């Protein structure tokens, strides 16, 4: 059964970048910071592509942001997604607003499966998939993982970690939770949020990058959707966490043991 799959691609600071807070606490220093697709969204894109490769269908990539987010949409198209949707919005967003916008996108596109990163590595909120599922009255398979190791042969064969039921009415999601793995069957249309160990995202090939330039991307103004776009999670102030006083070296194991026992008193 061909699947219509919608995936998300948020533009975030490169996780390897050094993040510093502006002296006035109104934001972070953006000079010298690289941007890329949220790593959890890359996993969502990869999973979408694998589902399509197995079952047929279409992968649509959606992003919300200013023109710069087109880079992340093109990156997903270069990986193999079929078309893009950029909901244009300048200014701060939060999970309440993002889920409201995605709700509108889902209303229009009616995908069978929606794959999102479980969280974005900038705000670290881990909320959008859950809000979206509740808004639409759908089931949620959060923190989707894979039973096999990412080093396994099955992974090398690029099989999706999410299984489509034989009757095509639900997907089986293995969720990574505290103390183990929970398996659930989520009825279609399903909302799935992707954890680290669902797959290893592919790199875009050069022909993929060339093709991506010609793939269609629809632009929608967020302001045209008739939504309240004011964030409800209002960031008042940012600051740097207190620095840890570390850096002391010990010469050998006996000294380490003596310090832990006598000075730190933790043994």
């Amino acid at each position, binding site marked *: 059964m061909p699947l219509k799959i919608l995936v998300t691609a948020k533009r975030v600071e490169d996780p390897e970048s050094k993040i510093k807070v502006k002296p006035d606490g109104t934001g972070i220093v953006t000079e010298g910071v690289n941007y890329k697709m949220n790593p959890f969204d890359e996993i969502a894109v990869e999973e979408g592509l694998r589902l399509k490769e197995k079952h047929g269908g279409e992968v649509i990539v959606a992003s919300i942001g200013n023109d710069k987010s087109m880079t992340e949409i093109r990156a997903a198209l270069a990986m193999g997604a079929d078309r893009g949707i950029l909901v244009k919005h300048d200014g701060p967003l939060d999970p309440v607003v993002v889920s409201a916008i995605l709700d509108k996108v889902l209303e229009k596109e009616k995908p069978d499966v929606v794959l999102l990163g479980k*969280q974005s590595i900038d705000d670290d909120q881990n909320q959008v998939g859950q809000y979206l599922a509740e808004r639409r009255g759908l089931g949620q398979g*959060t923190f989707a993982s894979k039973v096999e190791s990412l080093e396994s042969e099955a992974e090398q064969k690029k099989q999706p970690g999410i299984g489509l039921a034989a009757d095509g009415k639900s997907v089986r999601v293995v969720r990574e939770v*505290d103390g183990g793995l929970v398996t659930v069957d989520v009825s279609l249309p399903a909302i799935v949020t992707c954890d680290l160990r669902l797959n290893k995202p592919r790199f875009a090939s050069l022909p993929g990058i060339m093709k991506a330039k010609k793939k269609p991307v629809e632009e929608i103004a967020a302001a045209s959707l008739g939504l309240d776009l004011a964030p409800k999670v209002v960031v008042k102030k940012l*600051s740097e966490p207190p620095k840890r006083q570390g850096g002391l070296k010990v010469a050998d194991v006996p000294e380490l043991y003596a310090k832990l026992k006598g000075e730190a008193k933790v043994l």
Partner: protein
Amino acid sequence: MGNVLIIAEQSGGHLKKATLHAISAGQAIAGRTGGKVHVALLGKGVGALATELAGYGVTVHAADAAGFEHYLAEAFAPVVAELAKASGATYVGAAATAFGKDLVPRVAARLGAATATEVLGFGGAGPAVTFHRPMWAGNVLAEVDLATPVKAFTIRPTEFPAAQKGAAGEVKAAAAAVDLAALPVRFVEFKEVKSERPELTEARIVVSGGRGTKGDFKELEGLADDLGAALGATRAAVDAGWVPNDLQVGQTGKVVAPELYIAAGISGAIQHLAGMKGSKVIVAINKDPEAPIFQLADYGLVADLFKAVPELREKIKAGKGS
């Protein structure tokens, strides 16, 4: 009003300790708003637990039904949202566990509430509570205001003390009707990762290994057992399949703050540091003197872990005898 509703997490009638930390966070808010703390307890056969929880001076709303045996956000959220309304709660929260992170946003969406994730503490003045939370893998602390009438949150258990037993509260039976067949999701199975060691987030000592172990965790497991410690690992070690997923410490894994954290063969990627830098004492054992973990460690030992860890175990054993 300004009442607070905390969602309890349990498994087979046994409370997850993180809930007690969430209750104390709830008590901190209630102290500011002049409200009361209510607890939503959903499950199958949770009667005894409801009585136990009431001992913390809270009103427990127990929804006891066979349909709640296996947690599903889709089944729990409507019940919790109704309890929030009925108890006059303007704050709804839980611990930032997989359960809390899955459920709270769904409850919040029903209540038109915004949510603050992984809250470390509260700010603001009087009843106007703001939330301190980490962003960018803990490299930034944010103070956020939730501009909705009802405010939802998950708290990081290591940042709040466990609630203490107090004046006896009360237990109220809550409506517990659930039609599992009508839900858009079905529970299939839970595969528990069993371990004799303490849980990572609750252990007094954590022994963690990374790429430097080259997949050989034997000595680290031995050290963990000698110390009654939990075992942890970096993402690299988990991705390589050397240890189970749920041992991962870091931004996307578990956040721990034990009294002693021993990092062996761990270079100290920021995503890993985000999960352990709240530890009281950090020991780093690494061959590479330039490893970033040393900047953070209280005691750094530049050494091969396969030599240093057995030696440390000998010392500990000898010390126990004396």
